């Protein structure tokens, strides 16, 4: 009796957790598939599904361009972060030198920076370099979000590799650049995928910089575009389209997260357990 009750309670809890996690996204899909005139009545199921909202979101505003912008900015940020991260991680993870601990603490400290604390300085820098309202400006700004944890996670990973693997190469007189490229890069693939994904997601979701450093619709990234989607008046928000846009930009992320579930979990915890 007690056993059965426990079992029921357990599965009830599991159901609640799953429903709680998934329902908002389910409801966004339902709303995005309903004609906008019908949204003024609540429905739990799209009775007459239509894709009008999905086509509508690409008309009247450069949403396709916004998606492309997000992809370009995030990809460049990922590549740059990984390159700088690997070289730095080799130094921090494989070489004993004075000041290493201090540098690691500095990198960690930067990841604690509130974005707002660099906002005016970054604004000045970006305007001075003529990159205001352009994608390169956003790429530079986003590096502050992705670089610290990329360096940290890759350093942790490099440090975990056995010492012997590079000794032979050193004896053979291979240069450090070759050691990194030929020996470490192949071993680092799993860590690169993890950190690359996390960096991509962080950059894809970035809002404050994109909001402040862009002006025109065509230079905006996806989060800002969604925040600014509006109807004829301020009080008449096109909820159907907003939900369609939300679903469009979220589906690829959810797919990525589900495919690389284990890696992402490993990366997140590796990034935190360091503390």
């Amino acid at each position, binding site marked *: 009796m007690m056993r059965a009750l426990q079992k029921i309670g357990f599965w009830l809890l599991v159901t609640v957790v799953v429903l709680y996690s998934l329902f908002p*996204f389910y409801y966004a899909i339902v709303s995005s598939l309903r004609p906008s005139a019908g949204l003024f009545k609540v429905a739990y199921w799209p009775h007459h599904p239509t894709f009008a909202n999905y086509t509508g979101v690409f008309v009247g505003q450069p949403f396709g361009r916004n998606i492309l912008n997000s992809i370009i900015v995030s990809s460049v940020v990922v590549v740059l972060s990984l390159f700088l991260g690997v070289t730095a991680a080799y130094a921090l993870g494989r070489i004993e030198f004075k000041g290493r601990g201090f540098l690691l603490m500095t990198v960690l400290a930067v990841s604690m920076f509130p974005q707002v604390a660099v906002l005016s300085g970054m604004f000045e820098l970006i305007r001075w370099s003529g990159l205001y309202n352009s994608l390169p400006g956003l790429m530079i700004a986003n590096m502050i979000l992705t670089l610290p944890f990329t360096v940290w996670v890759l350093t942790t990973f490099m440090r975990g590799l056995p010492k012997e693997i590079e000794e032979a190469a050193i004896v053979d007189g291979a240069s450090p650049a070759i050691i990194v490229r030929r020996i470490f890069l192949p071993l680092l693939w799993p860590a690169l995928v993890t950190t690359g994904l996390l960096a991509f997601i962080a950059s894809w979701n970035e809002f404050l910089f994109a909001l402040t450093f862009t002006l025109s619709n065509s230079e905006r990234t996806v989060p800002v575009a969604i925040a600014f989607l509006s109807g004829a008046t301020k009080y008449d928000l096109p909820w159907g389209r907003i939900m369609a846009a939300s679903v469009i930009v979220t589906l690829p992320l959810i797919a990525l997260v589900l495919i690389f579930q284990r890696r992402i979990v490993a990366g997140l915890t590796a990034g935190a357990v360091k*503390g």
Partner: protein
Amino acid sequence: MARPQSELLRARTRTAWVFLAPMLIVLALVAGWPLIRTIWFSFTDANLGKMSQAKFIGFENYYASFGGILQDPDWWRSVWNTVWFSVVSVSIETVFGMIVALLLNVDFKGRGFVRAAVLVPWAIPTIVSARMWGWMLHDQFGIINDMLERAHLISGPVAWTADPRLSMWSVVFVDVWKTTSFMALLILAGLQLLPSDCYEAARVDGISPIKVFFRVTLPLIWPALIVAVVFRSLDALRVFDLIYVLTSSAKETMTMSVYARQQLVDFQQVGYGSAAATLLFLIIAAFTALTLIATRSRASEG
């Protein structure tokens, strides 16, 4: 023999700095320099239109006869809002995260699916989740009001995000939904490192699961839990996106980040806004330093 050794060592050190240089330069450019400039701007009368003509005015943005930031009740309100938001949301997330982590630590059929489901809110961009919940919490057409009315829990529609008494709770609610999974994953990582023999012993002795949790599990995962709480708190203290989209610049939900950006961009007062940003930076730095000291002393005790 000693000579070539030290020669090699010196070469290695040189290599280290060469490999570090690109990363350090970029970090100095995107983090160090902007931070220094922000702090400098906080001592000037800089205006967004003409930042280059900023004049040094000392501490007047902070404290002055005509009213500095430290005399602004709205600033103190945003400080209080931020602290309240961080404490309440991180506390709820810790409890929920613990429950989800304990659930996921049980070996049951469909566990992979549940873990994937829990990860979905984490993967959704903050802006999107703010929009999604903004729609669900809509005062006239929102599904939350509909559900509660069907269940006879409320008699009329509730303005979740506009009502000053409720808006902060709505923000907390959405934040909890979004970030509980992060908390759960970190706690789960701690749980999975625990030795199973303690549990075997406890079960043989017939100790109740609740007692086992408080006497065995909690003390053992304490370090992992602290790390998770510190990380979440640092994140919560700088919250911006969620509040900006869900309740825009309403006073009841304004946090330090929202306040600073409003001064900086909307009111164009770069000097004053930078002062707010600098104060936020100092608060977070102090919090980080305190936790570091606390964990250090704990570690040296244990």
